[in-house]
């Protein structure tokens, strides 16, 4: 027995790398959806919308207080059951065959909801960090609330939130390694499958780790470049 079967490792690598698009699709798509969810929840909290504000707190608290894996299970088992229940007991408004919904849909829903809760807090604090003075200045020249948001608050909040967005995207890429529970074959699931054939788990897991590491380094670089470009109007630390 070899400690590390290098040939097998080299052989597996491209097969694992081939699943990179799956991981990227899930993480980037849920991240984008999460930013939208987070923005809405942040606005609800900032404007202290009655009732919804309580729900927003509950949502953030629940998501942050439970493991992603548990949330994935709840979505993957919960949604089909709800759809099925509706079809049996009501008038079949949801005319889909539960068995035909691809697992990736559940995964996208689960991760969007999960990341959204974290983004809500990031976006809220970023908007608040822009400061009342900026909003008052916009009001004083007769801009409406929406105009102020679009031209003054969001561009500045985005810059403030950017480092956090970067971290969140990197976490998202790594957190998606749990998607096998929904039957989605991503980098890690592919590694498991390949490893199971010959019981060479160490090689495939190291290959998977290298793929994750590589993509995270690239993403980090991209974020850094974006940050430099966007922060051109700030002189050092403001």
């Amino acid at each position: 027995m070899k400690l590390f079967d290098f040939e097998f490792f080299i052989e597996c690598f491209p097969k694992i790398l081939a699943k990179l698009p799956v991981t990227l699709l899930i993480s980037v798509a849920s991240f984008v959806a999460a930013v939208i969810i987070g923005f809405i929840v942040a606005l609800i909290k900032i404007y202290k919308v009655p009732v919804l504000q309580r729900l927003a707190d509950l949502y953030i608290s629940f998501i942050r207080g439970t493991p992603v894996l548990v949330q994935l299970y709840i979505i993957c088992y919960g949604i089909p059951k709800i759809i099925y229940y509706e079809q049996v007991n009501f008038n079949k408004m949801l005319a889909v065959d539960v068995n035909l919904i691809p697992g990736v849909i559940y995964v996208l829903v689960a991760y969007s909801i999960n990341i959204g809760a974290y983004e809500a807090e990031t976006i809220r604090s970023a908007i608040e960090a822009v400061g009342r003075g900026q909003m008052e200045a916009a009001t004083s020249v007769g801009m409406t609330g929406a105009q102020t948001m679009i031209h003054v608050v969001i561009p500045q909040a985005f810059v403030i939130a950017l480092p956090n967005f970067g971290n969140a995207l990197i976490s998202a890429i790594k957190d998606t390694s749990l998607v096998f529970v929904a039957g989605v074959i991503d980098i890690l699931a592919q590694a498991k499958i390949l490893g199971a054939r010959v019981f060479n788990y160490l090689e495939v897991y190291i290959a998977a780790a290298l793929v994750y590491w590589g993509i995270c380094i690239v993403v980090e670089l991209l974020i850094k470049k974006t940050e430099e470009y966007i922060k051109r109007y700030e002189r050092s630390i403001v």
Partner: protein
Amino acid sequence: MIRINNIKKKYNNTEILKGIDLNVEDGKVVAIIGPSGSGKTTFLRCINHLESPDEGVISIGGKRVVAGSSKKKEILELQRKTAFVFQNYNLFRNKTAIENVMLALTVVKKYPKKKAREIAEELLDKVSLPRERFEYYPSSLSGGQQQRIAIARALALEPELILLDEPTSALDPELVDGVLDVIKKVAKEGITLIVVTHELSFAAEVADEVVFIDNGEVVEKGRASEVLGRPRELRTKTFLRSIQREYSLIG
């Protein structure tokens, strides 16, 4: 004519403004003076509803806003007839000098970019910002330059009234005169100004009327030479003496 009637404002049961009246004829300059915490800034912010007064009626150029019963749209219309110059400038950090002036023109007035830029260039020339600084972001400009841009921004929408909240208090001493000169220039053009200020010599020179506010009410108002030169009320006298003492210590 600007009419401000019976402005009242409370924060957590503390009465900040106890019913302030002020009428200003078009083109006049009013200086508001008073000790810190007297409510003068709050009063200024209530005039264009940056702060909503609890009670009171404000009418500017035919637009009338009644505290508590006027709609958002009416308040917005009032705000579009006024402009505000902040103590700490509050220029839009994500916009260059010229974009700061252009923004309200393109967004609120829906002017095409080119027309907005022409107006903005003219205004920045008026406040004597060097042309090569037009594309600078606020973070790389001095306080005096930022405040002058803020004045240009305030002028852009051709407001009937400009409110200035201690426009020179945050500036380094050597930059104060430049900003005051710009304000004097604006005053000469016939725009109505209400200025909260600690610069008594500036008030004496520029203001048609001086209002002394203390403890949320108007203690004394009248011609600048009267209020500053021959105050009638004891509180005014005490306040002016304390400020003059400060000046003589420096001088």
